[in-house]
């Protein structure tokens, strides 16, 4: 860890050549192409490697995520984008044999420090999953679960307020206010996913991770979630993994392209989708074999 920390600063990541990028030099270098780093990152990763047993899933990824930005992770299946996302709130801890090397910091605090409590981390970094997974409880209890768990509400009135606020922020309030005490599993897929978002934001996290949040939804439900992401980015930092390139293009500010466990390119979304800097990114987003 220490050794990685010391090399983190010295590693050149092709940041120095913005002009060259403008003229689209297609490079095959191992190092990540594009604008990886920002001045005041919310979350910063340096030389992150993730292993499942002996198999390395993530190779040497260094990238910053700025405050209130929406960063999209794209790439073919098995490229490590989900693994990478899950290492940001240590959901990988639950997988046996998963090992994370390198440094991941949030506001300068090492997420993998021994003294850090993963429960606290997950209260600060919420997560929304691929399949809508509300608890088989009432809508109210779903949203109130996090605040109750972390003791955020002092009274019943307080809790009611948090639930309403969270449901409003997830633009679900108007649809469910009449049936807060009915089962959350009785909602439609899109509503369930928004319920999961409401549940995640009920504990006021600083960051929200979304793992293909729309892959199980129809286009209209997807559009609603995408609109929601846009609104949420005013208050939260959002990292989203998506299979849909169009979705990344629509919602994100920056797009990161992963390939075989390597972070190939990170650039502003408008650039990635008009003139990507790397041959592999180009091949992926134009739908070619690379």
């Amino acid at each position, binding site marked *: 860890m220490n050794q990685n920390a010391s090399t983190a600063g010295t590693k050149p990541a092709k940041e120095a050549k913005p002009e060259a990028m403008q003229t689209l030099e297609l490079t095959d270098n191992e190092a990540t192409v594009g604008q990886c780093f920002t001045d005041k990152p919310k979350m910063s990763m340096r030389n992150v490697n993730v292993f499942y047993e002996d198999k390395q899933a993530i190779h040497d990824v260094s990238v910053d995520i700025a405050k209130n930005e929406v960063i999209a992770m794209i790439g073919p299946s098995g490229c490590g984008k989900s693994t990478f996302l899950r290492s940001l*709130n240590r*959901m990988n801890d*639950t997988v*046996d044999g998963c090992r994370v090397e390198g440094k991941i910091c949030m506001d300068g605090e090492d997420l993998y420090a021994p003294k850090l409590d993963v*429960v*606290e*981390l*997950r*209260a600060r970094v*919420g*997560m929304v*999953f691929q*399949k809508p*997974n*509300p*608890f*088989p409880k009432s809508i109210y209890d779903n949203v109130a*679960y*996090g605040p109750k*768990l*972390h003791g955020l509400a002092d009274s019943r009135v307080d809790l009611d307020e948090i639930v309403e606020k969270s449901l409003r922020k997830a633009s679900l309030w108007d649809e469910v206010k009449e049936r807060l005490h009915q089962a959350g*599993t009785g909602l439609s897929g899109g509503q369930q996913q928004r319920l*999961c978002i409401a*549940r*995640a934001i009920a*504990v006021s996290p600083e960051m929200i991770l979304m793992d293909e949040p729309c892959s199980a939804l129809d286009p209209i439900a997807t559009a609603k979630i995408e609109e929601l992401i846009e609104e949420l980015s005013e208050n939260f930092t959002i990292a989203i993994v998506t299979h849909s390139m169009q979705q990344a293009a629509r919602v994100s500010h920056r797009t990161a392209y992963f390939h075989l466990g390597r972070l190939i390119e990170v650039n502003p979304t408008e650039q990635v989708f008009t003139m990507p800097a790397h041959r592999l990114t180009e091949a992926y987003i134009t739908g070619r074999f690379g």
Partner: protein
Amino acid sequence: MSKSVDNLEKIRKSLSRRNRAEKRFRFYGVTAVLIGLAAVMLLFTDIVSKGHGAFRIAYLQLDITYDQDLIGIDNLTDPQQLALGNWQAMPKVSLRNQFPDVSGRKDKRSLYGLVSNGAGFDLKDRLLENPLLLGDSETLWVLADDDIDTYYKSWLDGEPYDARLTAKQVAWIHELHDQGKIRLQFNSNLFTRGDSREPEQAGIRGAVMGSLLTLILTLLLSFPIGVSAAIYLEEFAPKNAWTDFIEVNINNLAAVPSIIFGLLGLAIFINFFHVPRSVPIVGGLVLTLMTLPTIIITSRAAIKSVPPSIREAALGMGASKYQMVLHHVLPLALPGMLTGAIIGMAQALGESAPLLMIGMVAFIVDIPGGFSDPATVLPVQIFLWADSPERAFIEKTSAAIMVLLSFLIIMNTSAVWLRKRLERRW
């Protein structure tokens, strides 16, 4: 064009073949189910046809005089007098009055053989309940002897069985029958008494109580232990060679013949810990050992069937592993666990082999009142009765089997009902 027509022809041909295969397959399935059903029906009819008689038993109408001198008591509160009293004299005298012509020791003995050996004690209990009857007399229905009962029932059914009766006894029975002084009535003894050497006095109360006490102990021990073990193995234990080893062993335990558990209980609980023999405590402990693997395996299956997405959701919200299990996994897995527990209990209820090893096969007349009273259990009682020479025990055995089966059916039905009731959809 012609090729596609060809193909269509081939498809049609294969289609009829496939349809035939399907029909055949369905026929096999239906046949298998029918055979199974027929076997069950056969078993049930056999048991019911053999056992229904046990629910009714022959009584004789006698004029009983509670004669102080005859019995040899003057104080109903003196336990010594009560213990030494000649209670059986009352029905004997009554019978002699009924048939005054009988003389000679042999004939008299066969006359006395008409009533149950326990009839006098039944009269004693009646007298103790109503002390004012002392010195008085009344007409009563008194329990007949099992041979009389057997003969009377078989005679009523048209196939008299008189091998164990003398010709005179048969004649007396017919005389009594003609006078309306012998009849069949509901055999409440079956449900209110413990075991006895005399079939007409034997009941299953003791065995039912023994089973109940044993099962309560088994449930109290095996459910918490089994569920905790399942939760630990499924949620907390690291996946390594050790847990694999444990898992294999648990699966093996479920397949170990139950008598081995009996030997184990004998060696450990009785010989090493010196727990008394024949008591529900040791029975419960042995049955706990036997049902634990079943409960652990079904509980693990129930835990596994909780979708991982729910776990992820809980962990993602910042729940600790313990909270995740307590708030989400356990409530969702509980129906499955309960079903497993009930099925395990049903298995334990029907078990006899291991209990034979730990002395619960003893002949116990008293109805057990606690976990440390000697007791036997229903299946063992069935085993004992089936082994008894008296013909009247045949129908008693079947009756006990019917009771056991109805308990099992109730338990399995409640397992299904519980699962339906508690199951949540997601």
